[in-house]
């Protein structure tokens, strides 16, 4: 067992930020989430129980996301302006060979159902191995494989505008 080096949050900041963006679906919320996570993690010395630094930090990020979302769900809901909804839809005139913009990808990931989203973020966004992701999410590696496959397929369908199996609206889920 070893202590978490406080500088680990700096070393892994970019990956944490990308994971937060994919969780929240917005850059502004991602910044808030990362800062809140870092404040919580550094509030007292932390011990790693065999996991890698990044795995530990991603777990803290997920826990902070879930707890802040629960808090937010108890507050009065706000409705997104219409222009925000329309402008955020990347599907119009999508060409298969077109390069994907980061915000489109993050938004599509954020629209995934939670279990698929977490698997995809852990492996494809943050770069954990299947084994590390399984440990983080407390599921078998085979489950990670399955969720990852389905998550990628849903994101592909979403970006192609083919109406993948319905997922929760990001506007409803994350606010």
């Amino acid at each position, binding site marked *: 067992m070893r202590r978490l080096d406080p500088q680990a949050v700096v070393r892994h900041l*970019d990956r944490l930020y990308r994971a937060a963006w994919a969780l929240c679906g917005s850059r502004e919320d991602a910044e808030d989430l990362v800062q809140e996570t870092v404040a919580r993690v550094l509030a007292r010395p932390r011990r790693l129980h065999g996991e890698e630094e990044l795995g530990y930090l991603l777990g803290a990020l997920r826990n902070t996301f879930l707890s802040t979302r629960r808090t937010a769900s108890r507050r009065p809901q706000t409705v997104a302006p219409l222009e925000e909804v329309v402008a955020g839809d990347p599907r119009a005139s999508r060409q298969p060979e077109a390069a*994907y913009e980061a915000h489109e990808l993050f938004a599509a990931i954020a629209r995934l159902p939670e279990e698929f989203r977490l698997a995809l973020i852990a492996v494809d966004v943050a770069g954990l191995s299947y084994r590390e992701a399984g440990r983080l999410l407390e599921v078998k590696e085979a489950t990670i494989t399955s969720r990852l496959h389905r998550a990628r*397929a849903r994101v*592909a369908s979403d970006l192609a505008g083919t109406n993948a199996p319905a997922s929760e609206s990001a506007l409803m889920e994350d606010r």
Partner: protein
Amino acid sequence: MSPAPDAPSPDEQRRIDEIADAIRALDTPAPAGLRERVEAMAAGASDADHGAVDSDRGASDAIAARLAHGVALASRSPAAC
């Protein structure tokens, strides 16, 4: 052996692979303002971690104080969006 009924077509599989490649290639860095705030908090925690305090309670209090200092510093330079 025929593919499973819900298996993606070759074109669909190619798109799925493209998406996975695109996601793995994302390299968006954290905004500078966020990095400054995080670095300030981590520096405060590192100082407290390696500093003069030696009890866990004392370390926690010191880290909390340095964190508050880091956040206060950071709040004066909000991140650019």
